């Protein structure tokens, strides 16, 4: 079923698609984090912002990706990276904003009070106390968003830019399963690798969690 010689002959192209895929899957996560952090912090400070923000994000999340890609074509262009990156950024936001809010909310009040009592200003408390404690909850959101993003990019192949998703279209049009299998396997491996890296990042960013469990 798998034609190994096809893989050998097309390695450079597969590598190029993989690179394209990684950019289109991960850039939305980075952008999403950059936007979700300030928005999430604002929603924690002004609680009234939270419900509308989450409401809008829920609606965005329920929009089919293919539909959004298509509606964007007149604006961002057919087969452009932006056509995929913009909607995926919104999907990432829909997951990340609630995790940032839940993460900050997970900081125990007595910890926050201790920080204030020790003379921490608001900015220093945020950077040195609130955010580090929020890391596990935020990263849990980042993991979900990253894995879905990696898988969703492939739908972009239907509008001409889907990274490894191109292999699905190629295999279908030529009625030839090898590229399809290669695409599925690479996407799964990519998701697995990204998820593993995030788990490692979480361990590095929260050394106290390890100290507690080994004590």
């Amino acid at each position, binding site marked *: 079923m798998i034609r190994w010689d096809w893989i050998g002959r097309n390695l450079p192209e597969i590598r190029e698609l993989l690179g394209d895929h990684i950019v289109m899957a991960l850039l939305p996560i980075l952008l999403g984090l950059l936007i979700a952090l300030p928005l999430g912090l604002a929603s924690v400070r002004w609680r009234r912002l939270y419900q509308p923000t989450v409401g809008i994000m829920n609606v965005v999340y*329920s929009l089919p990706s293919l*539909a959004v890609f298509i*509606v964007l074509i007149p604006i961002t262009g057919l087969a452009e990276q932006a056509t995929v990156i913009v909607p995926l950024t919104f999907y990432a936001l829909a997951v990340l904003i609630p995790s940032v809010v839940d993460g900050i909310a997970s900081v125990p009040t007595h910890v926050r009070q201790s920080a204030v009592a020790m003379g921490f200003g608001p900015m220093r408390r945020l950077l040195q106390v609130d955010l580090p404690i929020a890391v596990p909850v935020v990263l849990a959101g980042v993991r979900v968003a990253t894995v879905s993003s990696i898988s969703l990019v*492939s739908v972009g192949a*239907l509008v001409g830019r889907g990274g490894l998703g191109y292999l699905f279209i190629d295999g279908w049009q030529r009625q030839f*399963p090898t590229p*399809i299998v290669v695409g599925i396997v690479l996407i799964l491996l990519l998701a697995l690798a990204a998820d593993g890296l995030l788990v490692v990042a979480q361990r590095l960013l929260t050394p106290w969690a390890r100290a507690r469990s080994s004590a």
Partner: protein
Amino acid sequence: MNWLIEFFGDPDNWSGSSGIPFRLLEHLEFSALALLAAVVIAVPLGLWIGHTGRGALFVVLSANAARALPTLGLLVLIVLLVGVGTTLPVLIPLVALAVPPILVNTYEGIRGVDRDLRDAAYGMGLRGGQVLLRVLVPVALPLILLGMRIAAIQVVATATVAAYVGLGGLGRYIIDGLATKDFASTIGGAVLVALLALAVQTAFTLVNRVAVSPGVSRRVKVR
């Protein structure tokens, strides 16, 4: 906007086997079948795993792996191997998509029920199965319905892709429009699918309001 007027204003789009009502029914038929199959598989499994605590690791691992599974790839692969003859090959990837959210939420819902509540039910003399059906399920219902809602929305959205391998449904407008550079049809189809997804979301909110016992919904924090 002109595209929308062109698409929705065309009388040909409102009748016959390529009309919106017919395509919508087709779309709902696949989606409902896939969702139903997923519920039949995932709910009993989730109840059992949540109630007995056996196989929890399986739930966590399979849910993460399933999220990474590209539906478009799975769909073209299965149809390529099995053939387009029946709708069954299309249902498989859709069911695979819908099972994890329902399974995870059912499991988490049952497992998350307050221990005291469970103990009280046993203390009142209920047996295992009765505790599950009369206490745990009603309390976990909001989460179970949430899982079904997520699954339903994903299925409705993804059933669009089925048109790519030659099936009907609203995806036809999108895929055919892309193939023939008929942008009005593509945009119109995309808008229809988005509206359908929102309708499903609303429908589940209503079901939630009717089905969940008021004693439960008052205490559950709504996200």
